[in-house]
């Protein structure tokens, strides 16, 4: 009987100093199936893939291709075996064309000259066959993330790869693009390609995968048929306990106005129009207000204006009765504003600093951390950081001295949350705080937001995730093209109505055109 597995990883064990990253893991990918690999951040998915690509040599275990044992020493070996991967962070040269990126490394040449015409025909044929729309001559820097991803997929197909690995492919996509990607994956598997789909988003796995292998803390938990399982069961396998999908919170009556925004206008960096146009709202103590909307409708700039990252063009921002429109970022911070930024690498952490130094970024000047002579009190910093690490369960390789860069995304986010919440802020501005995180971490962060609210602080949440918008806040403000177009009560609205506001079809505050 013919072997039914395209690739098998049997009993893989990979040990790093101090940690068993993979402990006797088995993964069997059937020919032509879509197989999901599910696990939280740090469960060992990346390590397992690195073993498959020959970046690490496992201490134990074997890899079989079509039933025959193979040795994979480096990525070229994997490529020769027909294994290709779309990395989470695309490996594309930005100033090259789509075509150049696809052929890079396997360029067709004649007498030493590149044969781009030939390559273009092959790419167009592939793009037609699998429904992957790309413009071969466009530069990567000019095209959408979705098209960049299709370029990565074409890279694998151009090399005639049979085993396609998608590493968290949906993290960077819009809902429409995710739907398209799912269809592409189904097309690919229908054409006989075997697909390994690495993810921690349960709904996507349920929608597209045939089977699912679950890892937890480096251990193999099991492989299940997706048709025979449910989301709660999968999440239980992944996290090791029941996960509450619903956010639990009791009703509260909001108190004083903490943040009062009047007529705020912020310029855009991308175009000449203002990104935020004459926006007014307030946030009171003991409530969570959520700014909802499709990405790019001015939410980012609104937060930049509130937090002082960008100057505002017009309007006032009043916090606790004090005008902070033109206050410095430190003034805002010292006066009780905390900010969980949208881009945690750009505005949240200094990636090459240690965890402890990141913890005191906004407070290093306080007497607790700086002596009168101006030197840092290292011992105090260490004990403070260790207290936060302990309290917020921030996991890292070497504790307080770990470089922030080497930590997983979820733990980087936890570190930021620890730092921002420990200030006991009167106002917490949290921008997409759960982006790219797994269910366990999301649940944790939602609990923290609710705890802030219950402690009587004001919380302004900016979110793109419909589910988050519907469950976490007490009030929803929808932004569309830089304006607030609706105020909704999450208890009385539904996703459909929200969608109408988000797409601009409904607007409660439309200003009458001036005569």
């Amino acid at each position, binding site marked *: 009987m013919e072997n039914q597995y395209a690739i098998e990883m049997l009993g893989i064990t990979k040990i790093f100093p101090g940690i068993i990253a993979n402990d006797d893991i088995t993964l069997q990918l059937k020919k032509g199936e879509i197989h999901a690999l599910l696990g939280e951040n740090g469960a060992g998915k990346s390590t397992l893939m690195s073993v498959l690509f020959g970046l690490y040599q496992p201490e134990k275990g074997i890899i079989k291709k079509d039933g025959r044992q193979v040795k994979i020493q480096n990525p070229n070996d994997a490529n020769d075996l027909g294994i290709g991967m779309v990395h989470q962070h695309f490996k594309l*040269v930005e*100033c*090259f064309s789509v075509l150049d990126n696809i052929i*890079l490394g396997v*360029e067709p040449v004649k007498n030493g000259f*590149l044969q781009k015409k030939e390559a273009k025909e092959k790419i167009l044929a592939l793009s037609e066959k699998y429904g992957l729309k790309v413009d071969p001559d466009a530069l990567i820097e000019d095209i959408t993330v979705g098209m960049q991803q299709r370029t990565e997929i074409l*890279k694998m197909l151009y090399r005639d790869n049979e085993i396609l690995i998608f590493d968290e492919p949906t993290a960077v996509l819009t809902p429409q693009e995710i739907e398209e990607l799912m269809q592409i994956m189904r097309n690919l598997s229908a054409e006989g390609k075997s697909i390994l789909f690495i993810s921690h988003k349960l709904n996507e796995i349920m929608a597209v995968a045939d089977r699912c292998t679950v890892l937890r803390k480096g251990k193999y938990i099991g492989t299940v048929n997706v048709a025979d399982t449910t989301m709660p069961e999968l999440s239980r396998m992944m996290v090791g306990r029941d996960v509450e999908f619903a956010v639990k919170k009791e009703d509260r009556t909001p108190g004083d106005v903490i943040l009062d925004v009047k007529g705020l206008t912020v310029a855009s960096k991308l175009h000449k129009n203002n990104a935020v146009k004459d926006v007014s709202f307030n946030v009171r103590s003991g409530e969570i207000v959520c700014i909802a909307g499709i990405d790019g409708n001015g939410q980012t700039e609104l937060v930049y204006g509130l937090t002082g990252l960008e100057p505002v063009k017009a309007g006032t921002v009043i916090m606790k009765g004090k005008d902070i429109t033109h206050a410095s970022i430190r003034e805002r911070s010292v006066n009780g504003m905390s900010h969980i930024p949208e881009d945690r690498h750009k505005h949240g952490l200094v990636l090459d600093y240690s965890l402890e130094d990141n913890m005191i970024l906004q407070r290093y000047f306080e007497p607790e951390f700086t002596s009168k002579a101006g030197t840092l009190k290292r011992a105090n910093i260490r004990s403070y950081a260790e207290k936060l690490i302990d309290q917020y369960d921030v996991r890292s390789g070497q504790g307080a001295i770990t470089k922030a860069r080497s930590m997983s995304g979820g733990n980087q986010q936890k570190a930021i949350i620890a730092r921002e919440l420990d200030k006991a802020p009167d106002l917490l501005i949290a921008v997409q705080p759960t982006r790219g995180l797994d269910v366990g971490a999301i649940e944790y962060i939602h609990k923290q937001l609710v705890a802030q609210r219950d402690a009587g602080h004001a919380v302004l949440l900016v979110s793109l995730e419909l589910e988050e918008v519907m469950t976490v806040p007490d009030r929803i403000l929808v932004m569309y093209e830089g304006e607030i177009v609706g105020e909704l009560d999450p208890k009385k609205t539904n996703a459909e109505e929200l969608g109408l506001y988000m797409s601009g079809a409904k607007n409660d505050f439309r200003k009458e055109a001036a005569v």
Partner: protein
Amino acid sequence: MTLLVQYTLIYASVLILVALGGCFSEHSGVINLGLEGIMVMGAMGGALAMKYLTGSPAFVVILATILASALTGLVYSLLLAVACINFKADQTIVGTALNMLGTAAATVIIKAINTAANPDDVSSVVQYIESKRSFIVSFGTFEFNWFMLVTLILLVISYILLYKTRFGLRLMACGEHPQAADSVGINVYKMRYAGVMISGFLGGLGGIVYITAGVSEWKFENGVVGFGFLALAVMIFGQWKPTRIALAALLFGLFRALSNVYSGIGFLSMLNIPSTIYNMLPYMISLLVLALTSANSRAPKAEGIPYDKGAR
């Protein structure tokens, strides 16, 4: 006027060669600040070849001089490659060290050679007046220099190499996104070595063209008086693209040529501006041009960052 054209072309040739050298190095991802030093070493290699081949047939002199200067530059550039690619040293510092070492080493070597021949001669001067004639073909008042043709050929080859071949595509990928290049099986270290060695080859050749452009002997204590840096400015102004580099080099070459020939141009000599002003011109122009254009300049993204296979 022909004199102005002649000097413009020969100085532009120098700048084209050296800037192309920088262009290859930077496209591979290594900043080559050591072009100045590489030029000095190349100039020394070429000047010695010319000195010892005095009286040989023109063809032999031309070929040997080109090879001697280019290979000296190439070997010297290996220092940069080893330090920056293998040992991941800071490219700016290594480049600066190369510049200081270049002039110093050339001075020491030439002095040693001179003193060995004549114990009273402690100068760092090499003469090559005889051999220089081999390079020049006169058309009326215009002195054509074979280096001009060599430069043109190398310019065309560089363009083809960068944009039409597999090598060029891979080289530029290493300078833009080495992780991407690595992930498709390209050996980033090898490509960077290639980039740096080509820059040594072209930089060394540029060195000999420069010191033979206007004079018949060279005092190596002077190095190449900042021409390597001027070439860097040309490279940036030329946006790391061969054709634009050629145009930028012509512009800067013109200003450099003015200082050689302004006294022969009627209205300029009437203006009575001190010659030092003309000497300063190309450098002042480069400051001005870079100040105005660098906001839009687009250097290879990964240049200056040592490539580490393990880093994410």
